[in-house]
């Protein structure tokens, strides 16, 4: 592939880069700054008052209620990461090594499922998980007691929805790092006398690490903002951070508070991202650059 060095005076580069950069600047970076600025303002009679005040941050840090929910959100996100990776890895491995001739068809099916309307799919899960729903009907026909599962409107229901909506990400990141592995490396390991198990743990797994890390971090960060799942499938039994944010906007009409809670979540995500980045870079096999 040819790579062209471009100067910022080149109109081709400006045409390719400037519009997108401008959109991201005005509608993504500036809003982030504005969110931070708003946390130092206050409200009076549901209206924003421009002051510079630490009132909101004092409130955020003095109410343990917020932090209980933030903590729960992080625990749910961690469980979601573990489940997603455990489900995604074998499937991605099978897709990369066993099902090559069907892999296009399977990937199309997965992409389609991922791209369809999340609200409708969540509604579908209600019909499945309901006490009189499809899952219990099937289980009853398999000889389980009636209403064996009672998952709807519980944290387990929330978790099923979260895994359902996010498992695609690690599935594809792991698959992409697995298909890039040079088969000669495995053959060399076998020649050197490694068993298949050993070759898997010493060649395949380290080389799959970029995919594992990036998939896991995507799931973690994205599940911090889960809203449909706890609301529709969890039935509000164990509210997550998204519910706090929704309440501060819709019920309390307190923008600075909503902005502060949003910023806290963004910072949690960014810190985790940085932490995983540091860990991944320290490990010679985890280095993204080395593989590219």
């Amino acid at each position, binding site marked *: *592939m040819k*790579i*062209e*060095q*471009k*100067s*910022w005076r080149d109109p081709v*580069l400006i*045409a*390719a*880069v400037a*519009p*997108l*950069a401008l959109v*991201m600047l005005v*509608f*993504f*970076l500036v*809003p982030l700054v*504005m969110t931070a600025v*708003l946390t130092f303002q206050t409200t009076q009679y549901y209206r*924003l008052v421009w002051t510079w005040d630490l009132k909101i941050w004092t409130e955020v840090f003095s109410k343990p209620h917020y932090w209980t929910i933030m903590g729960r959100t992080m625990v749910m996100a961690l469980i979601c990461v573990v489940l997603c990776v455990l489900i995604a890895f*074998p*499937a991605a491995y*099978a897709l990369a*090594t*066993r099902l090559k001739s069907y892999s*296009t068809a*399977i*990937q*199309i*099916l*997965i*992409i*389609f499922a991922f*791209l*369809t*309307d*999340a*609200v*409708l*799919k*969540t*509604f*579908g899960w*209600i019909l*499945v998980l309901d006490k*009189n*729903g499809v899952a219990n*009907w099937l289980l009853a026909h398999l000889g389980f007691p009636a209403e064996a599962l009672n998952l709807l409107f519980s944290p387990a229901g929330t978790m099923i929805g979260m895994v*359902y909506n996010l*498992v695609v990400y690690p*599935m594809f990141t792991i698959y992409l790092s697995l298909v890039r592995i040079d088969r000669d490396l495995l053959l060399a390991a076998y020649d050197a006398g490694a068993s298949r198990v050993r070759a898997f743990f010493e060649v395949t797994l380290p080389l799959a690490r970029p995919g594992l890390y990036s998939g896991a971090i*995507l799931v973690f*960060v994205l599940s911090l*903002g889960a809203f449909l799942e706890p609301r*529709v499938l969890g039935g509000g039994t164990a509210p997550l951070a998204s519910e706090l*944010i929704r309440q501060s906007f819709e019920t309390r009409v307190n923008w600075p508070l909503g902005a502060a809670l*949003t910023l806290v979540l963004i910072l949690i*995500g960014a810190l985790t991202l940085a932490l995983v980045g540091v860990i991944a870079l320290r490990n010679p096999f985890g280095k993204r650059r080395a593989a590219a």
Partner: protein
Amino acid sequence: MRTTRVKDMVLDTALVGSVVLLLVFFYVPIVTLVAFSFTSSRVLTLPIEGFSFAWYGELFRKPDFLPAVANSAIVAAVSTVFATVFGTAGALAWIRYRFRLQSLFRAVTFAPLLFPQLLLGVVMLLWFSVLGNWLGFSTGLVTVVIGHIVYITPFALVIVAVQVHGFDETLEDAARDAGASGWEVFREVTFPLLWPGIFSAATFSFLLSWGNFYISYSLSGTARTLPVFVYSGIAVGSSPIYPALATLNFIPALLLVALAEYMRRRALKRQAAAGS
């Protein structure tokens, strides 16, 4: 020797089984919705008592969802055009060009992918509300479109970038040697070669926008897109018209995804064959 073979078979079965289970997991709610759309009963429980198109009829007898469909279509069409154009230009800049501040450009154009949609929506809502206060506008379809462009462009960019990565530039050189201008090379060589990736990115963008709930929910103000309409419906209670609505939603999408992916993969394979 025999034990390893048995072990291999067990392993193969387990691995293939994990893919099958994953597909079942993905399609459980989708198949459930499609099945219930043909029920004749009002209660959405198994066993399905009778087959009928009654709920499709009901859906069109009270077409209060049609304005939402129109809104969704407008938003998705406009967002797709912008996201695909930005994504294509961005992918070329990501992969083929080297310029000052490129890593910053990459970070900023990739970052929305790492944002939970809810937070992205909230952050933009705050900005549009402040801006609206100053300039005297309120959120509506235009802000939804902007939100979708910010969210979807990174997806389009990544998809086109894969195509740019496997690109055979000797054809461009040949066209240039034959006397084509820069624009002609793009129109006659670069664009047709990238087209499968661009088409795929456009399909992806359209469906991501069409099915988007979070950003539309934050930014639509009083206007409603289809997912927001369905959300406010199921928040009140489940109704037998939603499975029918869902089924009508799924079928064209499935065909479009299959077509786009088929085209893109065939082209990538051809590029790989030409490159080696």
